[in-house]
């Protein structure tokens, strides 16, 4: 391949670092931006700059925030007795969309994974324990994923919080609504059965 001009090459490089973007896609995107109006390209550059300048993480729960605290921690209408522990800010958005949950969050930004050198400090577990120890929390809902790392992280958090005496729960794993029993994978089905409840 003939060498690209430096500016183009730089953009291709940066774009190909994004998740799900390979070298080919990166090149297509870069040429697309090159062809686009000056205004569009500036808007994109500005949006990326603003994102990093204006959005940080909540000091209390590590959710995305525009100030020192996130909108949820700042809101006076949320119950402070419940903390829901999730792996990522995207999980917060998913749970918020249900409008079922009125408590606060604690965002881990990851799970325990020795393979990736991630331990409890990297995922803000000490801060969670501190929040619970400070009092006022009745229940911690550990909503990490059901994969190996998510399960182990849940077990670790359960063990770390047990001395505080707080109630610790894990969301029920079950069948998707509207899902066909026949097509559920065996593990989901087994969990749904073992977590069954009386009518």
């Amino acid at each position, binding site marked *: 391949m003939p060498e690209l001009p430096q500016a183009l090459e730089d953009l291709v490089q940066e774009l190909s670092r994004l998740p799900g973007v390979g070298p080919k896609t990166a090149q297509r995107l870069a040429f697309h931006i090159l062809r686009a109006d000056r205004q569009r390209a500036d808007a994109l550059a500005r949006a990326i700059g603003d994102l990093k300048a204006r959005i940080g993480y909540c000091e209390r729960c590590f959710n995305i925030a525009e100030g020192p605290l996130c909108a949820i921690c700042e809101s006076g209408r949320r119950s402070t007795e419940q903390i829901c522990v999730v792996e990522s800010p995207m999980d917060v958005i998913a749970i918020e969309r249900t409008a079922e949950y009125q408590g606060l969050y604690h965002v881990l930004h990851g799970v*325990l*994974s*020795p*393979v990736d*050198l991630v*331990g*409890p400090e990297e995922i803000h577990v000490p801060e969670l324990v501190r929040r619970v120890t400070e009092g006022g929390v009745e229940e911690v809902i550990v909503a990490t994923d059901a*994969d*190996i*790392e998510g*399960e*182990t*992280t849940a*077990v*670790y958090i359960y*063990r770390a919080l047990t001395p505080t005496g707080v109630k610790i729960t894990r969301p029920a794993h079950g069948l998707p609504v509207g899902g066909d029993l026949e097509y559920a*994978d*065996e*593990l989901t089905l*087994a969990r749904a059965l073992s977590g069954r409840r009386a009518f």
Partner: protein
Amino acid sequence: MRLLRLELRNFRNYRHLDHDLGGHLNLFLGANGQGKTNLLESIALLALSASPRARRETELLGPLAAEARVLGRVESEGRIREIRIDLREEAGRGRKRIEVDGVNRRAVDLPGLARAVLFWPEDLNLVKAGPEHRRRFLNQMLVQVEPGHARLISRYARVLEQRNHLLKQIAAGETGIETLAAWDEELVAVGSQIASSRRAAVAELAPLAGRHHQAIAAGEELAIGYLGPPDDFAGGVQKSRSLDVRRGVTGVGPHRDDLLLELGGRDARAYASQGQQRTLVVSLKLAEADLVAARTGEPPILLLDDVLSELDAERRGALLERVASAGQVVVTSAEAAPLPLELMHEARVNCIRAGALEPCG
């Protein structure tokens, strides 16, 4: 359980194969190196979603090919399904895409749709080879009869990888011991499910294999047992901790399992003669086919790769009795007529040369 049709594209030395199989006995003849084992391997791939012999999946791609395909149409309990496995190389690694009737499926969810028992010359070492070969024997059987077992094995491999990494980090003083208990708990949770599946399967297998062995070897007693994690698995893991940290590997769990094989009360792994070993393996394989049939209600496809010529008359007779009686069988051989005349008449015979089928003679 029957394989109705097999299509191969750029799979090992098969550039293009479309073949309709017979419902009972299929015989493929050919000299060594023509593709007999490759053909059975492709069927095993449909059954297990992984090749039982390739170390890297890129080995399965034909020479200079970037993509390969294995397609099988299988019939089970009157229902016909089409399993398609597309393989390609991406950045030096093999990638698989699996579809069943046009719907994408994860590799861990494929086993069980096309059930097969593979018996090939490598199995003749099953008795004296390392315990990992006997664990693989159990795995290959269980993933086909227990839905979810393949997923369980892959989850267990993941816990083990994570825990072993952690052990090394603890030994190097890079991290503390405080998360180890959580990994132990997960190891025991997943590992004990595998252990209980294996324990039940071996208990079922033992009398079946014992009966076959007695029939072939004039009354010789075969006993099979499951050597699994200790009854107090969690306690065992905890006791092993400091040793685990020192060695950097997990010492207790189903990844260390083995099969106890005893002939007349003596450990076959240490004492069995060449002939006894072969009888034992034939008995185990026949018992595996029995178990699959009993659990699923249908005999599995029996894949016999050039093993008949390796066996003497009596063992061959026991195997052929099964070949003649049950379900679909695919046999390969380098001999011109490996089967007795009456079976040769029943068989659909094909000759393999350089990755292609041609009329024999």
